Every structure is written in C-alpha cells, then in structure tokens.
C-alpha cells in the first residue's frame, strides 16, 4: 500500500446533528451518509455527499460536450500516418482542446460581469491554470520544439497568459498624453520583458518626441532594440550562426552599458540592463513580471536564447528560488509547472490529479500524450495502464450525472481492457422513465453486443407495460429482446382474458403480428386461435375446422385450453359443410377421442364433472355418426 500524498480532505455535513454516529455507503461517484444510533431505531435523514460538483455547472457542461467531440475525433486518427503529419495533427488537436477551455473561460467572465456573486467564480482561476499547464505541456511535450524555436514558443506562452499588459497599454495610449501617463514606463518595460520590441519601440517614439534633447539616446536604444536577433525556424540560419549573432549583439549592449550611454536617463538605463540580462534588475521588476515563470522566460530570452529542452529544469529551479520568497510555500501550480520543465510527465499528471477536483483535465491530457507515444506503459497496481485508469475514472464520474452519461459511453469504448465491463455495470443503472430513453440505452447495448443488458432492460420495460395493462407494448419489448418466455407470459394473459370475458382484447395487435408470432409457441397458438374464431364468424367452416384440427394435432395448445378447444369443435360438427366433407369429421373425431382418453389418464383423475362432460361428448359424437361402426373409427390409441 503506497503512502498518502496528501492529508485527506475533511467535508462537513451541515445537516447532520452533532454527536450522532454516521454510517455510510459508497455509490458510483457519491457517498450516502446516514445518521445512526446504536440503541434506538429510526434515522431521519440520508445525506448525499457529492465529490464532484463541477459536472453540474451549466457552463462547464459545454466544456465536457465539446471536448468529447474532440476526443472521439482523436481516437480515429489513423495509426499509419507518417509521424510528421501526426505531430501536426496532435498539435492542432491540443490547440482545439485549449480553445474550448478559453471559450468556456470567456463565457464565464461574461456571466460574472452580469452576476458578480455567481458561485462559478471559482472556475475562472481553475480554468486559467488548466489552460496554462496544458499550453506548457503542448510546447514541451507535444510540439517538442528543439533549442531555438523552444524559446519562441515559451515567449508565446508567457505572452498569452499575461493579458494585463495590453490593457494597460490601451489605457495609456488612449490618454491625452501617453508619454506622461504614470504607467507609461511600466508598459514599455513590460513589452521589453516579453520580448515585444516592435511595440516597445513604438511607445518609445512618443517619449522621444517629447525630449528632443535626448534624441540621440533614444535613437541608440531604438537601434539596439531593432537589432536584437530572433531565431527564425523557417530560415536557413543554423543555431550556431544565430548564437554568434546574438553574442555580438549582447556585447554591443554591454558596451553601451559600460559606456554609460544611458546614464542620464534612469528608465533607459534600466531597459539596457534588462537587455543585457542583469538578474538584479529583472528581480527589481517582480511586480511587472508577477510570476516566476515569466521571470524564467525573460531571463532565458536575454541570457540563453539557445537553451536546450534538457537544460530547462536547471534554470527553472533557480528562477523559482530566486523569485519566490524564502518563506513562501510553493503553490500546487508552481510544482506542476516545475515538474513540466523537468519533463517529468508522470509527476505533472499526479500533481494535477491531486490538485483538481475533476478528472477531466488529466484524462484528456493523458490520452493525448498517450497518442503521442510519450507515456511509458506504466502498469499500475490495479491492472490497467495510466491512460485507461484516468479515462475510466472520468467516465465513471460522468455516469453519475443524469444527462452526461451518454458521453461516458464513448470513453468506455476507448478503454480496451476494462471499458466494456465498466459499461456493462453502469448502463443498467440508468433510470428509464420514458420509452425513448430506454430505446437509446438499448441501442447502445445492442451496438456493443451486450445481450444480457438488452434482455434485462427489455424485461424491465415489458414488466412495466404489463403492469399497466399495455399488452401490445409488452409484446413489442419481448420481440425486441427475442424473449420467448416473456412472449409466452403475455399470450397467457391474453388467453386468460379471453376465458374470462369470452372475447379477445387488442385485436389490432393479434391480427397484425406477422412473422413475430413465431417467437413463442403460445403466441402462435393465440394468433391461430383468433384466426379460427375469425374464420368461424365469417362462416368459412371447412377452413375453420382444418385450422382447429391442425391446432390440436400440433399440440401447441396449453393444457388448460384443451377443454375449450374440444367445446369449440362441437358446433363445427353441426355444420353441414363440415360433416359432408369427406375425411375431416372422422379424423377430427379420432383425434378428439384420443385427446379425451389422454385427459382422463394424465390430467384430471376422476372427477364427476369431467366425467359428465366427457360422457356427453362421446355420446353426441356416437349419436351423430350412428351410421358408422367402431371399425370406421379405428382403434383409439392411448
């Protein structure tokens, strides 16, 4: 048993009274807790403790649905594509996921503008953090940029997640005299720190026009800024060439500093020091940098632009230590990002799983990384690999939701080892209020050959229909499940109804069953028996007699009905049509007599009433065919 990573969280159940004992039972995603007293009986409340509230948020639901769509698309990427094409596809899928997160964030922010006290405010920071981590993982793991482009990607990453610079800049530019705005230099320095030299230069021009005397200084700064080399991934320049160029530039900036070219202007001096990569100056601007990873990227920009991926973690660790106070405890986000810089994917996933309430992020990220073949197959104690474990956890959580369970089905489908079993267990617990929902669940089961579940669902629906006296519905459910036993049950009900009332109910059903009547013997008998009645009503007696004969000989009639059949045969024998046709009456009689004897021997024992009926039957038939001797009938077989 492994050690605990963190202390377990404590959840208070507000409605439970103090001092009472609590019992509990695990559910698929929730816990049911109830008060219990060892002595006295009776407990008043059951409390449902939900671990995951996120799936009930209406805005996050969009996240789940859209990402489900992307997930399903990801699974269908063909294995045989060359790896270069696959990488571009994976990067674009990663960007899709991120754009979904951003869309959710934007919508949340819009909602919060209208209703600032909305409970969903906590999701904004979570989504921001998630997108930050995902973006970094995309840069480092999926895109896996080598030295050179790596820094450019990291710069993009930082710029994307530091939106307040643009806001401040807008404010400054919209003021009457931008160069005199109190935030002006902050904006310029922020631009420089982010490597956005074009914008920085444009801002500096405004200051330069205000101070014509210092024009040369500004011109020098402008030149320095414009000459900083940036690596061009598409170009022909190699990394070494770029490195040489950069060093030249760096030396030039250093010279300017040594020459005190900017000594008279404090701000330009600061900018020059930043350009040369002076750590102390950078650290003085902690407020503008605001995060240690911004500091890291800036430092790399100005000190080691050709940083290799494998060297990142040295700088990351040192930057974090330099930036954060000695006393402050690193937040979960910081340790996750650090783990990412160290290329420790498993640590990232583990830390995220602990820090976040919902499995959405780790499940989707791990799945994507697994497709990129970045996860070593890491067998866990419980038998499946990491990706499958996380997907199963996520999908099981979805299944507890009254509506999102449909999404979970696709996730289970893509877990090769245990997905099917999980689905079998979970799908039976979906409540079936309407036929339409039952049909959808059935379709899911049928497509996956889960015949047990199909049978059980059809049986539930059929029983319900039967209880409400909807025999046609019940029959259509048993036809779907090909459940002969249930069809027999329903036919019995019909026949009982007939015996009780003398007429058939639901004629539209029985008359129009078609090939479905062959599902069970009893059902076939029912349909044929009704047909017999129809033929009799239409006065087509010889056909009716033939049908009755075949019913008796085929022996599909239930025992309880043999008496009824015999009684039905009687009036037929009266019909001229029947009695004058050549073979029919004798055969009929022959079989009738066999049956009668069979009855006596096997079923009824001796009973006065039965004896009377049998005797009268035999008497009548003998009277009618008085002309025939027993030889004509042959010897009845018992």
């Amino acid at each position, binding site marked *: 048993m492994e050690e605990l990573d963190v202390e377990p969280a404590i959840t208070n159940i507000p409605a439970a009274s103090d001092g009472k004992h609590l019992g509990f039972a695990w559910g698929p995603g929730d816990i049911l807790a109830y008060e219990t007293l060892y002595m006295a009986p009776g407990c008043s409340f059951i409390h449902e403790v939900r671990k995951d509230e996120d799936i009930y948020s*209406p*805005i996050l*639901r*969009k996240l789940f*649905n*859209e990402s*489900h*769509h992307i997930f*399903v*698309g990801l699974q269908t990427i063909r294995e045989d594509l060359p790896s270069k094409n696959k990488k571009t596809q994976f990067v674009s899928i990663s960007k899709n996921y991120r754009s979904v997160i951003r869309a959710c964030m934007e919508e949340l922010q819009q909602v919060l503008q209208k209703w600032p006290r909305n409970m969903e405010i906590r999701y904004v920071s979570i989504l921001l953090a998630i997108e930050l981590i995902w973006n970094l993982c995309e840069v480092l793991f999926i895109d896996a940029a080598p030295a050179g482009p790596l820094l450019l990607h990291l710069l993009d990453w930082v710029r994307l997640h530091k939106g307040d610079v643009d806001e401040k800049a807008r404010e400054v530019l919209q003021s009457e005299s931008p160069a005199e705005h109190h935030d002006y230099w902050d904006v310029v320095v922020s631009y420089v720190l982010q490597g956005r030299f074009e914008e920085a230069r444009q801002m500096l021009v405004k200051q330069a026009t205000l101070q014509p005397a210092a024009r040369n200084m500004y011109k020098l700064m402008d030149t320095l800024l414009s000459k900083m080399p940036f690596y061009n991934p598409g170009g022909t320049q190699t990394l070494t060439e770029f490195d040489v160029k950069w060093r030249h530039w760096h030396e030039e900036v250093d010279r300017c500093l040594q020459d005190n070219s900017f000594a008279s202007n404090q701000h330009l001096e600061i900018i020059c020091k930043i350009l040369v990569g002076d750590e102390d100056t950078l650290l003085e601007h902690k407020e503008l940098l605001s995060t240690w990873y911004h500091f890291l990227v800036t430092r790399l920009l100005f000190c080691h632009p050709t940083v290799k991926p494998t060297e990142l973690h040295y700088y990351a660790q040192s930057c974090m230590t330099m930036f954060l106070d000695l006393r402050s405890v690193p937040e979960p986000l910081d340790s996750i990002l650090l783990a990412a810089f160290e290329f420790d994917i498993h640590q990232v996933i583990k830390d995220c799983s602990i820090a976040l309430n919902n499995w959405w992020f780790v499940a989707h990220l791990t799945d994507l990384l697994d497709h990129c073949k970045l996860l070593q197959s890491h067998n866990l104690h419980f038998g499946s690999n990491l990706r499958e474990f996380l997907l199963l956890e996520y999908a099981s959580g979805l299944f507890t939701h*009254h*509506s999102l369970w*449909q*999404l979970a089905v696709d996730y289970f489908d893509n877990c090769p080892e245990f997905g099917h079993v999980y689905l079998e267990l979970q799908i039976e617990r979906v409540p079936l*209020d*309407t*036929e*339409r*929902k039952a*049909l*959808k669940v059935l*379709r899911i089961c049928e*497509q996956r050959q889960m015949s047990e579940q199909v049978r059980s669902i059809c049986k539930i629906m059929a029983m319900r229909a039967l209880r*409400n*006296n*909807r*025999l*046609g*519905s019940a*029959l*259509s459910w048993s*036809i779907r499940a090909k459940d002969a036993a249930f069809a027999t049950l329903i036919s019995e009900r019909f026949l009982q109804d007939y015996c009780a009332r003398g007429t058939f*109910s*639901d004629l*539209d*059903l029985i008359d*129009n*069953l*078609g*090939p*479905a009547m062959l599902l069970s013997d009893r059902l076939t008998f029912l349909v044929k028996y009704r047909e017999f009645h129809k033929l009799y009503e239409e006065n087509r007696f010889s056909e009716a007699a033939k049908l009755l004969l075949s019913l008796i000989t085929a022996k599909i009639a239930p025992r309880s009905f043999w008496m009824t059949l015999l009684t039905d045969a009687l009036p037929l024998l009266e019909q001229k049509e029947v009695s004058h046709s050549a073979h029919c009456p004798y055969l009929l009689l022959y079989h009738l007599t066999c049956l009668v004897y069979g009855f006596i021997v096997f079923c009824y024992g001796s009973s006065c009433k039965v004896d009377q009926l049998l005797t009268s039957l035999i008497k009548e038939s003998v009277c009618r065919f008085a002309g025939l001797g027993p030889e004509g009938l042959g010897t009845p077989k018992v």
Partner: protein
Amino acid sequence: MESVNAKYVSQKISKTRWRPVSHSSLQQPDIFATGSWDNEDNKISFWSIGNHGSSGMDEGFEGDPQLLCEHKHDGDVLDLQFLDQDRIVTTSSTGAVTIFRHHQNSQTISVSQRWPRVHRYPCDNAPCTGVVCSSPEIVTVGEDGKIIVFRADQEGVIRVIENADSSTIHAVTYLRTTEILTVNSIGQLKLWDLRQQSNSPSQILSLSGDRLPLHCVDRHPNQQHIVATGGQDGMLCVWDVRQGSTPFSLMEAHSAEMWEVHFHPTNPDHLFTCSEDGSLLHWETSTHSDMPSFLQGGRNNSMISRSAMAPAGGNQSLISTWLSGDSSKGRLETTHMLPSQTLSVNSLDVLGQCLVCGTDGEAIFVNRQVPV
C-alpha cells in the same frame, strides 16, 4: 455547402421547431424554439438567428443562435409544435400538455394553458409522446395508447379515444383536416377519421416483414395520399394510403432509429431525416425530363429500394416523384448535412432555406443555405 457550426447549449435537445413565417412575406425564418430532455430541470427556449434585415449583417458573421428567453418545463419535452406565431404546445414525459405564450415585447414566456396528467395509466403517469395542431385544435398521443383531442382556450378535453392502440403511439400527423395518422411500436400506420364517433381506426397499414416500431411520420405537403415514415431500423418508408396496406417503397437510410422525417413544406422534392446514429440526411429526387422516377437500388448511395410497384393505370404526369415504377430514369440523391459524426440527432426542422437540428451532444446546428 457552407460550413455548419455547432452551438453548445448545456442541455440535450429533444425537439426544435421554426416559428412559422407568414406565407405572404418572403422572409426567411428567424426564431426557433427548442425543448430539452433528460435534465433535472428541463426547459423550453426561444432562439433567434437574426435574419431580420439580413442585408445589414456583416459578411462572414455566422450568426450564432442567440437565446431570447427560456422557461422551466416539468418533465422531458417529448414533442413541441407552434400553435400560432406566439404560442407553442408541448407534451411532457409526465403526461401533461402545456401551451406556452412567448411575449415578444418583453421577451418572456408564460404558461397560457395546461392540462396536467391527461395521459396516464390507472396508477401512474404516461409520457405523452406526440402532438399535432391545427389551431385551435390540438391532438396528442401517448404511451398509454390514447388519442386525445383538445381545443386551445377550452378547459378540459374535447374527446378521448381510449385504447386506440394496444402499444405505444409514437407520432401523429394530420392527413386531412379531419383525419389523422398515427404510428405505433408494432409497425402499424393507422388512419383515424375524427368525424366518426367510433373508437377504431378507419384503416390500418403495416410493414410486411418484421413489425418494427415506427417513430415518425410526415405527409407530403401537396399530395395528401403520400406519407413517409421512419422506424427503429432506420428504414425510410414511403406509403400511398389510397392503395395497398403495405409501404410503397422502403429505403435503407440510417443504421439506427430514425427520429424525424420531414418533407420540405414548399419544395416537396426534398426530404430530411435524422437519426440516433448521429447523421442528418437530405434526400432529393430529381425529375428527368417528363418521366418522374427515382432510382431503385442505387448502389452508390448504399440504398436499396425493396419494392416499387407502378400504380395501376394513372396519368404519369400526376405521379409524384416519390412513387414511381420506372427504375432507370431519374435520381435520388442523399447528402449528409452535418460535418462529422455526432451523438444522436433528435430533431430537425426545415423552413425556406433554413434548417435547424438538435443533438444529444447538447449542440444546435443551424444551416441557412440549404440547397432547395
């Protein structure tokens, strides 16, 4: 075909319907209503795609549907129809039928009239599965096998046909002003004449093979004897109710239940179907000079027409393109209207050049340039 974007709405959509536009104006529809299902709190919502004064719109502005207003609904919305410009009728899984009124000025919705628990079993509620209306008359059907006739603005029900069906009735539509058609879960199409007082159908038509449930029915807008149905196996059946008791032709359309079938109201050579398998198909018959017909067993469209008989006698120019015998002329084309596989498409509606559909993936798709 222009690309169709999804709008995610955080509720599974069970029905969508366009608000009817007056025939005199040539406007495209701009407002549609949706109903949700399988939520703890279900809702009906009205949306706008802002087609008013379309010339003022920016190029490239896709016009995502905007939510105008919504209202809580008790139980799943199993069917929804516009009664007139402002009112919709909905049927619920609790067996209730409700009329909601949309107040355009204040963009609010209020309950105008309600008949709770009209569809029920002796000791339980029965979901009310379908509704059709021709103002002021409303006809509903349910899982309890009853057909109930109401009038808007009148309390109580006008008429109940008890035990109209021994199985669940899935959908209902008008054949003529006094005749309705229902489909049930044992594959039967029943014709009812509401003028008669009897409680049995005037005609029963059924499939010839397996009696699989039929889920949807729609009548040809101009030729009232032609009816299309869709069922559990995804087959599209076209029937001629004047003759024969079996379908005129069957076409394999989808690989799972077909939930809705609609003829285009003004251009009936076009038919639309949507299904549990996540696809929405647009069927188009095209006539070939003066011999209207459609392809029998078009292999390239993976469709097999099982039976097609030439109607006895009859003037060929009056034969609809949906019913014909001559197999070699003319074409039936099908196109998928959604960009990629989604979860089940539960509902669709088409009016003019606009198509709207709702899925179990909690998304609404609107296509404003349907090629009709």
